[in-house]
Each structure stands twice: as structure tokens, then as C-alpha cells.
């Protein structure tokens, strides 16, 4: 009896110390990446199973639809496609022109990044942080710090990579800061998260800065982590507080952070060969 108690005490002290060591080391250094990757592999099957009912309902809602709904959707998609392809034609012309002009200026400029579609896994993480899990990991070439984009704007970045899944920190997490600029005049700022799903704050913009409600905010690409030129959101409110040097600027993120199921992983520095080839083909066609 006594023996067991004393061995439990020793074990408690040892493992408590190991935990304290982990807590002290983990936030600052990357030595523990290996351990985390290993454990993520163990946890992934559990998360996968939790996600199955959600997948099934999703599958059900796409499979069990009426003929007329499908027809309507098809009609809508066709229209959308037509509109988009019209826009694309103009875009292609503009892009070639832009490239030619850039070449004249001798500056290199990459417009197309390599992308891959990932799907969100419906599991709950720590409640007061804004994080999500996606179903792509090391196997697909994900890396720590990789930008994640939704269909309408920047979503966040990967903070932990496992073999089959990754954890994404959303731009609305209160520990997230994103270098941005205002599309209208190129004014640079930092957008920080608030922990609230539809609110970001622009920090340290002086009261006299040229900003208007409704201005489009895009990524500036300055931290080299996010590619430049992706939409972040629109300015929703500007509050000038008397006596304060900085205005309080609220942004509404353009990505629907709480609704998305599919997201894009972006490799900012790798050109998307396929898209480029496609564009080049089209360009030669248009020239002829």
C-alpha cells in the first residue's frame, strides 16, 4: 500500500515536471513538432469518425434532391458560368497587358499561385480560439504558415501540420495579425482578429488617414506569408475617439468564416503551371 502511494507521488512529480517543460518550450520553439505530428496521427482517426455523420447528412442533402431543384441549380450555374467566362475574357486581356507592361518595367510579378481544394473537418477545438481542422496535411505538401483562402477572401493560415490533416488559425482569432493595404490608395495597415467571427480591427491608423467606410481591404503580402492582392474585407465602421491618436476601424471579413465547407490552400511562391498554360493558350488564341 505504502509502496504504491510513494511511486504514484514520484510519477506525479515527474510527469508534472515534463508537462511544465512542454508548456514552457512548445510556444517558442519548434523542437516539439515531431511529437505533435505523431500525436496528430493518433487523433486523426477519432476526428475522422466524428466527422462521418456530418459527411452523411451532407451526402444526403446533395443526393436526395428533386429533379426540378437540380434543373434550377443547373440553370443558375450555367448563367453564372456564362457571366464568369465573359469576365475571364476581359481578365485575360488585362493580364497579358499587365504582364507586358511589367516586363517593360522589368519587375517580376506572379499573379497565379498554386492552389489545392481542402475540406473542413467538423470537430470542435478549444472554444475561445478560432481554429478549424482541414483534411489535407503533409501528404499533400501542406506546411506551417501556409495561407488558406475561401471563395470570397482570406481565411487564415495553417499552424500545425499532421500527416493527413492540419489545423488552421482563422484571421478572426485574437492572436492573429495580417498585413493589409487599402485597395483604393495602397495605405498599409495591420488587421488583427478580435475573437468575433465577423469583425477585424485595423490597428494604428492615424485619425487623419485617408479611409472611408466601404473601402476594400486586401492583403499586402508584406510579411511574405500571405500572397498579395487577396480580398480581406470591407471597412464597416470608423470611430474617431476624441483624445486618441488612432481611429478605431472595424472591418467585416469578406470570407464567410463560419459557413465554409471547402477552402483553398495556396502555395504563394509556386506558379500554377496548369492555369498558366491554360492562360497562355487562350492568349495565343485571342491574338490570332
Amino acid at each position, binding site marked *: 500500500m505504502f509502496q504504491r502511494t510513494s511511486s504514484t507521488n514520484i*510519477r506525479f512529480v515527474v510527469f508534472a515536471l515534463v508537462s*511544465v517543460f512542454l508548456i514552457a518550450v512548445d510556444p517558442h520553439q519548434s523542437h516539439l513538432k515531431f511529437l505533435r505530428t505523431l500525436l496528430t496521427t493518433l*487523433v486523426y482517426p*477519432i476526428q475522422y469518425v466524428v466527422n462521418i455523420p456530418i459527411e452523411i447528412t451532407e451526402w444526403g442533402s446533395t443526393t436526395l434532391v428533386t429533379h426540378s431543384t437540380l434543373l434550377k441549380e443547373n440553370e443558375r450555374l450555367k448563367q453564372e458560368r456564362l457571366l464568369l467566362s465573359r469576365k475571364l475574357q476581359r481578365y485575360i486581356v488585362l493580364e497579358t497587358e499587365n504582364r507586358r507592361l511589367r516586363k517593360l518595367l522589368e519587375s517580376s510579378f506572379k499573379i497565379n499561385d498554386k492552389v489545392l481544394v481542402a475540406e473542413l473537418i467538423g470537430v470542435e477545438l478549444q472554444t475561445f480560439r478560432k481554429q478549424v481542422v482541414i483534411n489535407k496535411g503533409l501528404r499533400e505538401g501542406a506546411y506551417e504558415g501556409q495561407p488558406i483562402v475561401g471563395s470570397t477572401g482570406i481565411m487564415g493560415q495553417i499552424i500545425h501540420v499532421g500527416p493527413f490533416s492540419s489545423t488552421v488559425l482563422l484571421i478572426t482569432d485574437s492572436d492573429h495579425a495580417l498585413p493589409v493595404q487599402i485597395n483604393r490608395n495602397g495605405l498599409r495597415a495591420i488587421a488583427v482578429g478580435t475573437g468575433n467571427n465577423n469583425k477585424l480591427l485595423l490597428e494604428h491608423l492615424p485619425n487623419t488617414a485617408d479611409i472611408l467606410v466601404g473601402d476594400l481591404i486586401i492583403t499586402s503580402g508584406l510579411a511574405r506569408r500571405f500572397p498579395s492582392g487577396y480580398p480581406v474585407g470591407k471597412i464597416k465602421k470608423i470611430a474617431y475617439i476624441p483624445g486618441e491618436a488612432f481611429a478605431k476601424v472595424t472591418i467585416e471579413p469578406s470570407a464567410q468564416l463560419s459557413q465554409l465547407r471547402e477552402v483553398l490552400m495556396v502555395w504563394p511562391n509556386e506558379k500554377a503551371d496548369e492555369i498558366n498554360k491554360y492562360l497562355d493558350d487562350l492568349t495565343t488564341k485571342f491574338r490570332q
Partner: protein
Amino acid sequence: MKKSKKGNGIIAMSFIIAIMLTALPLPDWAVNWRPDWVAVVLIYWCMAVPDRIGIFIAWFLGLLLDVQQGNILGQNALSMTLIAFLTINSYQRMRAYPLLQQAVLVCFYLLLYKLVMFLILVYLGLNKSDWTYWMPAITSMLLWPWLFIILRDVRRKHRIS
């Protein structure tokens, strides 16, 4: 005294289900009321079979939870270790208590568990929680009698000791 291997699968399964319940998405209003499933199941097994479920298993479960929730590594691990330590040191008393008194003790242990995590978050500057942070201790307390009876029946059926 030879340790019995019987029922390891059942115990592991109960922990896996507990982690699943922790990962299960809930509607927004319910999120902050989710019981600390893993901690409660851990308390049960530490109380029922203290020879088999000890500090190391608690620590490992904590690490798994940390990874699942995207926390700093060690946060849950430290708190889980504490819970196992407290329970193993008081299992004889706990077994003798009536259910309600056990539930109150479980609530007390979970408050300590949450306090340790809270202090770690404050130390790391990551604390963004409000008063609802402490609610799981209460819901876990309400859950305890039912969970105790279910797990006891499972244990008896499979003769785990």
C-alpha cells in the same frame, strides 16, 4: 500481484468515446456547457481500478486532448496528471461515499483541473475566456451519477478489476 490485462480494450474504448464526445461539434449556445468527458471518465477509472489507470495514462490522454483541441502541448497533460494524482490518493474514500457526495468531489477536482489550465492560459497570455469557462465543472457534476452507473455496469459485465 499480477496485473490483469482483461478489459484493457473496454477502458481504451471508453476513453476514445470520451475524446469523440469532446470533439463533437455542438451548437453555439451549448459549447460552453460541454462536460469534460475525458476528465470524468479518467476519474472513474482511477477510482475503480487505480492499479491499472495511473499517472502516465492520464498524462498521455492530456497530450492527446491538447493536440485534438489545438492547445499548447502540456496544458491538458498537466491538469490530467493532477486529476489522476488526486483521485488515486483518495479512491478508498471516494468509493465509500454516496453518489451525490462523489459528484460534489468530482466537481471540486474538475474546478482544480480548470484552474490549472486557466493559470497556464493566463501565464501564456492566451486567456480569452469568460465566466462560462467554469461551467463544464457543473455539467460534469450533474453528469457524474449517470456516468458512474453506466461505467460500473460496463465494468461489472466485463469483470474488469
